[in-house]
C-alpha cells in the first residue's frame, strides 16, 4: 500500500517537473552562435533586397541611380528593423 502511494507521489513529481519544463517561461537553452549569425545575415539580406528592388526599378524607369539610392537606404533601415526584432526576441528569452 505504502509503496503504491510512493509510486503515485513519484509520478506526481514527474508530472510537475514535465509541466514546469513545458511552460512558456521556462529558460530556453541559449544558442549564441546561431543568434549572432542570424543578426549578421538579417542586415545583409535586407540590404540585398533593397538594392535588388532599386536596380529593377531603375532599369524599368531608366532613372539610375535614383531608385538604387532610395531603396538601398530603405533596405538598410529594414535591416536595422530586423536586427531590432531579433534583439527583442532575445531579450524575451
Amino acid at each position, binding site marked *: 500500500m505504502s509503496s503504491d502511494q510512493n509510486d503515485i507521489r513519484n509520478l506526481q513529481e514527474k508530472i510537475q517537473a514535465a509541466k514546469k519544463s*513545458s511552460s512558456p517561461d521556462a529558460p530556453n537553452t541559449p544558442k549564441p*552562435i546561431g543568434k549572432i549569425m542570424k543578426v549578421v*545575415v538579417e542586415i545583409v*539580406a*535586407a540590404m*540585398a533586397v533593397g538594392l535588388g528592388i532599386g536596380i529593377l526599378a531603375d532599369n524599368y524607369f531608366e532613372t539610375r541611380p535614383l531608385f538604387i539610392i532610395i531603396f538601398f537606404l530603405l*533596405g538598410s533601415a*529594414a535591416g536595422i528593423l*530586423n536586427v531590432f526584432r531579433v534583439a527583442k526576441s532575445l531579450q524575451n528569452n
Partner: protein
Amino acid sequence: MAADNPIDPIHQFEISKIAEMQIAGVDISFTNSSLFMVFAIAATMTLFMLSLSKRSIIPNRMQMLSELSYNFIANMLRDQVGDQGRAYFPFIFSLFMFIFFCNFIGLIPYTFTVTSHLIVTFAFAGLIFLAVTIIGFMKNGLGYLRIFYPSGIPIFLAPLIVPIEIISYLSKPISLSVRLCANMLAGHSILKIFAGFIVMLGFLGFAPLIFLVVLYALETLIAALQAYIFTILTCIYLNDALHPDH
C-alpha cells in the same frame, strides 16, 4: 585545374552529373546532389521504419530516438504557433528531418553536402515563403496586409514605414537560405583547409589535427543547430501568417 591540385577545399562542392536527362531543353540530370538528397530521404525512412516496426509500450533505444524527434518538433510547433499549427506538422517534421540528415550525411568524408548549395536552400526558403504568404492571405483575407502597417503608427509616417516593412518581409527567404548555406559552406571549407594543413606540415601536422577534431565536434553541433534554426524560423513565419496581429 582543380584536378591538378590534390588539396582543393572547394572540390567537395562540385556538382557532377550521374545520369544525363533533358526534358524540353531543360537540364534535369540526376546529379550527385540529387543522389545525396535521395540518401537523406532513405536514411530518414530507414530510421523510422526500423525503429517503429516493433512498437512496444516500453520503447527500445531506436524507438526512443524517433519518438524524441517527433516530440521535439511537436513541442516546437506548439510553443511557436499554438494549436492551429498542428495541421502543418507533417511538413515541418519532414523539413527538419531532411535538412538534419542532409547536414549530417555531409559530415561523412567523401560525401556531398546538399545544403551547402545556395540554390537548394533558396528553393526551400522560397517555397516556404510563398506557402506562408498564401496561408496568410487564405486565413486572414486582405487583412493580412496590415502586417506591413503596424498599429499605432501615425499616418504621415506610412509612406516610410510600409516600404521598410515590405523589404523586411521580402528579406525573410534570403536570410533564411543564406544562413543555412553559408554555415554549411564555411564549415566544410574550414574542415578541408585544416585537413590540408595536416598533410602540408608533415610531422608537425599533429597540431592542426587536434584542432580539426575540435572543429569537427563544432561542425556536428552546427549541423544540428542549423537544421533546428531553419525549422524554428519556419514555425515563426507560419505563426506570423496565422496570427498577424502579434
